């Protein structure tokens, strides 16, 4: 069980700020800045809850380094044909636990609303993050980011990071 323990209000606010910045980077489509929120040796995965709960290893996307994140950014901005859309992240329900001095396990719920040009906004993905946040050269970064989505039927495709 994850419990809130021995994390100061300042630390807590700083972690929440990281999530706010993360959401702003994606929602503003500043994709080039997205990998900068991760450590060099990060992992990033998007996993259907079905696979996660059953212990099946397949991820919708699975990246094992900041380099792979940069390759995804190139894919999103240069190679993957898609109908453009906006994302709007709503992140809430933080549960934080200190792992070591400068590392935290963070769980939070997210909703992503998708809006395409000329179309109504729609609930695109609902799920949770199960992350490890670390302090690296004074700055909080994601060392692990795991997005577990409940909405198992993806509405067609998934192009941008969650």
């Amino acid at each position, binding site marked *: 069980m994850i419990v809130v323990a021995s994390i100061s209000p300042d630390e807590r606010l700083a972690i929440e700020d990281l999530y706010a910045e993360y959401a702003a980077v994606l929602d503003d489509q500043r994709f080039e800045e997205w990998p900068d929120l991760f450590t060099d040796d990060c992992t990033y995965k998007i996993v*259907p809850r079905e*696979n996660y709960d059953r212990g099946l290893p*397949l*991820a919708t*996307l699975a990246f094992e380094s900041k380099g792979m994140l940069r390759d995804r950014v190139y894919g999103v901005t240069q190679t*993957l044909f898609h109908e453009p859309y906006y994302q709007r992240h709503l992140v809430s329900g933080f549960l934080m636990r200190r792992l070591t001095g400068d590392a935290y396990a963070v769980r939070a719920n997210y909703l992503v609303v998708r809006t395409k040009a000329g179309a109504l906004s729609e609930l695109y993905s609902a799920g949770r993050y199960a992350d490890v946040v670390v302090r690296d050269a004074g700055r909080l970064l994601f060392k692990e980011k795991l997005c577990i989505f409940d909405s198992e039927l*993806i509405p067609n495709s998934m192009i941008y990071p969650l």
Partner: protein
Amino acid sequence: MIAPERRAGLAWTSDACSRVPYRLYTDPEIYRDELERLFYRDHWGYVGLAAEIPNPGDFKRTAIGERSVVMVRDRRGGINVVENHCAHRGVQFCQREFGNGKTFVCPYHQWSYDLAGNLIGLPFRNGVKLDGRVNGGMPPGFDLREHGLTKLKVEEWNGVVFASFDQDVAPLREFVGPEVGRYFERIFDGRTLTVLGYSRQRIPGNWKLMMENIKDPYHPGLLHTWFVTFGLWRADQRSQMILDARGRHAAMVSRKNDGGKSEVTAGVTSFRENMTLHDDRVLDVVVEPWWNGPTVTMLTLFPSLIVQQQINSLSTRHIVPRGPETFDFVWTHFGFAGDDDEMTRRRLRQANLFGPAGYVSADDGEVIELSQRGFAQHPEHRTVCELDGTGTGGADHNVTETLIRSMYAYYREVMEL
């Protein structure tokens, strides 16, 4: 039966299949007729891998056409497929994707079925005694044997399970035929499979568009930057387009090259000459002995299954139609029991290319959606499908749309359209 006047309303320009009327992708009546003729009669539908239900009592909920069915392993180890539809009041009794049980019990009135779908009991069958009288109960002639679940015909082929509502359907191997069957058995040669996981997407397009997508070797080297740039699929590769005798199933077989600039990249806007990966472990390809040459085989087993081998990534992709303008697309990634950890990791890394977010398949769903929207604009219009002529049959290159035309030749015959 579709009336001749309806057929006359379709924008076929000849007996050829090189121009496909848009209405085949939008018309609800044609769609309902497709379910009957192509999904429920004369055809085998993919239901899953035997490895998904390894133990007695294991079940998986899946679908053939729009009908929910359950694939279950019985106590003797055999695989049964029954319709998820209680004989009493039609309830879809099974509400979980996977599970294990000894019987199926409908939640509404607790009718119970064994794992073969036989009705084994129902509450108050012989009535309820009250004040020396028996109230209710089923009529004297009520026979449990007449009220089982719908039992489908089932065949397992080297670990892959197919089922049919049609008890008179041709044997599975005969249905697939030796030409495409050979490539099926290249992947499924009897080795034990391991399930790596699932991806599910709902694509707002007609189900046939996905069959066409995997019978279309024209688009991969154009739509998909990764294919043309890294040489995984492009027009200058040695390829075989293989069909069964009736033109409905196909195998696209090819061998990767080194990619890079050439005649086939000139003017191709998706080609990126200087593209390099920051982390190329995603393309850490290791040749496996069983390949015997091809690096890619894409199989379409009409109407509902695609089998993918692209380098070290393997999946089945199941088409579940949801009305004329939508289908669900379920990916099951797998490996082999003999894979070491490194090979499993490789298959999982390469899975970044495939599925709803994949570098070479997320955009297939996107273009299918846009095709479907275009069809709605002009109900009387038709597609043009004439790369490499207007005829049907196999080919020894990939600059062709012959597999799509061949599928429609079969389709017109069966649909009488």
